[in-house]
């Protein structure tokens, strides 16, 4: 598909023409973001790639401004954040946009991932595209975790304690690895300093992997709600203006919800305890990570054994890497998979349920509920998907995208 873009563009502007002849960035933009043939049948779930990109840029922009005012030292970090909130002109705006932005970045990415799962976007020839996406998710998690430590509140400190202590579960070398991560024998100033350095570095690594993700996307083009490849020009539209405009609309609607939280309930998604300065001598009654980690936190605690819990938690992401090979069905879109179609929403409910388990102390029925949820999560990927591909009888696929679109309109 990438090769069928037609003749190279001619630029009327002499300067652009001169540059493009030597460094073809303008031809590249023309080809990849203007004429790029894109399936004509996207629904609004296809907005979330663009939305996630906008959030990434927004996080980096606000983050750089925050970094110019923040002090990464255990005795000053908390007060320096409060100084941003109080004395830096519009500091409250930048800080709340960044803080709420992290949550909305994850919301966008989680929807983007579930969309990919429902419509089978990870299947051949897009396996590497998917794997790069999982790498981005992992990098985002590391970045978000370290960012949450920076304000040096109670949840920052104790969240960091819980998560870094996971590495002590590794046999033999666990303790040494943890000491190495901390830069000492307890979480202290060296830990805060390196988390700050990495929190600044990793977003740019994410940008790099996003670039690869986009390159991989533009080799075979986007998947679409029907999950069948475009067969000709009647099945596609040029990316611009059709999808630039549709993405622009979707991004704006998303930003309205985001602004609603950032301006009117900026602390709603956070934990009140993080406005208490970190105190290594006082453990909060109830340590919880940020909401976007809760399902994974529930999986971690569902296994009674520490090492087992750590393996299960990392395993819950690891299965995503091999998802393209776990799903044995050759049909991509759940629209034509009568059974899978129902199990996808069940997986979403399962993950939300795990999130609820992660938010509550591991007592009473929350423990078995988290265990059932964990079991189901792995059942979905490791048993259901391989078996379903063999026993499910898919519905007949439409002959082409245009055919399906026109039929839908007629009917």
């Amino acid at each position, binding site marked *: 598909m990438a090769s069928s873009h037609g003749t190279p563009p001619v630029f009327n502007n002499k300067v652009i023409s001169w540059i493009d002849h030597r460094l073809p960035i303008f031809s590249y933009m023309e080809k990849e973001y203007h004429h790029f043939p894109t399936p004509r049948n996207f629904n609004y779930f296809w907005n979330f790639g663009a939305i996630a990109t906008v959030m990434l840029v927004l996080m980096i922009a606000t983050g750089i401004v925050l970094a110019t005012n923040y002090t990464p030292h255990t005795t000053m970090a908390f007060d320096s954040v*409060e100084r941003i909130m*109080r004395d830096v002109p519009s500091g409250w705006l930048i800080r709340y946009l960044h803080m709420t932005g992290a949550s909305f970045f994850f919301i966008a990415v989680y929807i983007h991932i579930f969309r990919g799962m429902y419509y089978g976007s990870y299947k051949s020839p897009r396996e590497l595209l998917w794997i790069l996406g999982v790498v981005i998710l992992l990098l985002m998690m590391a970045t978000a975790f370290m960012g949450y430590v920076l304000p040096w509140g109670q949840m920052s400190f104790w969240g960091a304690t819980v998560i870094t202590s996971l590495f002590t579960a590794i046999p033999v070398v666990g303790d040494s690895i943890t000491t190495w991560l901390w830069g000492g024998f307890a979480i202290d100033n060296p830990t805060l300093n390196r988390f700050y350095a990495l929190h600044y570095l990793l977003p740019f690594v994410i940008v790099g992997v996003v670039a690869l993700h986009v390159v991989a996307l533009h080799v075979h083009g986007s998947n679409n709600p029907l999950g069948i490849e475009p067969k000709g020009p009647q099945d596609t539209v040029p990316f611009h203006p059709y999808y630039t405009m549709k993405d622009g609309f979707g991004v704006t609607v998303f930003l309205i919800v985001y602004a609603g939280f950032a301006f*009117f309930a900026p602390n709603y998604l956070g934990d009140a305890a993080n406005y208490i300065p970190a105190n290594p001598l006082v453990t909060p009654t109830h340590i919880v990570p940020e909401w976007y980690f809760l399902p994974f936190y529930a999986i971690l605690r569902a296994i009674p054994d520490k090492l087992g819990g750590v393996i299960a938690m990392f395993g819950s992401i690891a299965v995503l890497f091999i998802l393209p090979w776990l799903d044995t069905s050759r049909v991509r879109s759940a629209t034509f998979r009568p059974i899978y179609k129902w199990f996808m929403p069940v997986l979403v409910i399962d993950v939300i349920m795990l999130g609820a388990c992660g938010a509550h102390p591991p007592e009473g029925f929350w423990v078995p509920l988290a265990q059932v949820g964990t079991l189901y999560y792995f059942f979905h990927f490791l048993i259901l998907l391989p078996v379903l591909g063999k026993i499910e009888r898919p519905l007949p696929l439409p002959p082409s995208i245009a055919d399906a679109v026109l039929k839908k309109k007629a009917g």
Partner: protein
Amino acid sequence: MRRTIVSAAIAVAALTAGAVAIAAETVTASETEQDPPHLHWHFDGPFGTYDRAAAQRGYQVYAEVCSACHSLQLLAYRNLMELDLTENQVKGLIKDIQVPDLSDDGQPIERPARLSDSFRKPFPNPAAAAAANNGKAPPDLSVMIKAREDGPNYVHGLLTGYVPFDKLTPEQIKEFSVVKDDNFNKYFPGHKIGMPPPLADDKVQYADGTKPTLDQEASDVVQFLAWASEPHMEDRKRTGVRVILFLLAMAGLMYAVKRQVWSDKH
């Protein structure tokens, strides 16, 4: 066969959804017992603002009562001008306050507070604060309203939620092993709190004629501390209204353009 699997899947989904709903209900039921009453605050809602008169009275309560033990170290006296007080009024409020400093020859001295000074701390350091308060330093109040779940109602509930020993039921005394010298508070986790009841009717004299009931004093100091926790809230909400109006207009425009662009494809 296929129908069975589909029905099973739907059943599983319904069951989990039900379980989550039940779980959510039980949790609220067990936690509401100690939830403070939900009051209406002047700063609630998307257009809420701070009640300046109440916040000024709240400063008086803080200065005359709370500041004996609790610091407010993220605030400076100049910040009080944001509560509709003039520079001279603030200077009048702080004229008797002495703050520690160093003299020109490096000796520790006390001098009158200036507008640019941070609020005076009641104790020179956390160890001294803890030593003077049975081993536990009273927390700083700068962001207290944000540092507790449902902060305004919690702090108000805490200040008004003391139960004298002779009003406790035998079950409460037994369950929480309360002795006569303990301070029992309905809303404090674990109920036994180090702080004795700080406020009472007529604890302060308000200059504006407001009747200083316990409830009034508590509400006023919450209004003051809410402002102290989030001094730019009004600016934030005003900006938010403008941002959202802009984005709504923008979304409408984008939608119209998108429809126009797509009109030949639908």
